């Protein structure tokens, strides 16, 4: 307390030092633009919201607890809104207006896979494939496919019935063995 009381009187301290600077002490010669301190908090909060959106992982815990807040701030940033719109537009063109490009790229990649690799993949992920798809693949690959000629005389309904019967009879383990 004694120290604080002494601290309060800067002029006395300077006089004690033998300095005449104490007599100079008056108001600040510096000025700020009108309403600077009224607008600074708003400017800063805007910057902080932008900071929160740019570095969400670095945001303080209290701010990071509200991901919705960060996302909202992020979405309020016009640059990111434009970016999102741009990405969505490009994706739309790519998938809907140029479907052939996507299909061709995927087909080309699949064509480069070895049969053994495909079998291995299907075997490892058999639960992800529908029974119909597996059966179709088995029939296409089977050597018995050549005997399809014998089915030529059957109409579409009869063939469908035969396929359904096969699906009912076939066991998942059998399909595993096929692959």
């Amino acid at each position: 307390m004694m120290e604080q009381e002494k601290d309060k009187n800067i002029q006395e301290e300077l006089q004690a030092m033998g300095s005449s600077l104490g007599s100079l002490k008056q108001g600040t010669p510096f000025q700020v633009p009108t309403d600077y301190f009224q607008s600074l908090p708003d400017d800063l909060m805007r910057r902080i919201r932008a900071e929160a959106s740019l570095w969400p992982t670095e945001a303080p815990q209290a701010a990071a607890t509200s991901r919705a807040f960060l996302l909202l701030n992020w979405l309020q940033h016009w640059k990111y809104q434009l970016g999102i719109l741009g990405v969505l537009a490009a994706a739309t063109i790519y998938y809907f207006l140029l479907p052939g490009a996507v299909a061709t790229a995927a087909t080309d990649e699949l064509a480069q896979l070895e049969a053994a690799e495909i079998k291995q993949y299907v075997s490892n992920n058999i639960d992800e494939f529908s029974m119909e798809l597996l059966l179709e693949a088995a029939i296409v690959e089977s050597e018995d496919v050549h005997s399809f000629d014998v089915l030529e005389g059957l109409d579409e309904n009869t063939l469908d019935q035969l396929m359904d019967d096969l699906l009912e009879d076939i066991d998942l383990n059998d399909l595993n063995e096929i692959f």
Partner: protein
Amino acid sequence: MGTILAAIKDEEILSLLLQKGATAFERGFRLLIEKYQERLYWHIRRLVLDHEDANDVVQNCFIKAYRGIEGFEGKSSLYTWLYRIATNEALTFLNKQKKRNAEALDSGNGFDLTADPYFDGDDLQLKLQQALQQLPEKQRLVFNMRYFDEMPYGDISAVLDTSVGALKASYHHAAKKIEAFIRESGAY
């Protein structure tokens, strides 16, 4: 407004900042800015001199505070912590400015206050500022904090991590050098 803000305790601000939820955090951080913006701005302004530079530095200071508030352990007061950030930011700015001036072979010794529209001092005040620019960085800091901000030596010690005795010596040397500079310039 200033009185109301000054009455808000740091504990209340910290309590808001540590609450979960963006609304409380925003309210807390805004209070922190409103309470300390002027003191920090003037501290920075007296070091960097130009308003635009001071504005940039004070904003960076609060951004740093925002990023670091999670790590604030309360070992020092909020004001001391903010003051330390402000001081570091201002010194970093000045060092960069010095480097830029050196690269540009600028022989000028800092900012020209006479051309500053936001400087309204008389001749004696101008001389005082010019004298301050001649001081070593540490002495200038100590003089500003003691003479203008009227900070207790204990607080200056916490900000600058220097003993009170060393601070008093720095302040004494700075005051003598300033007085000599002003006397030589004939402004007294």
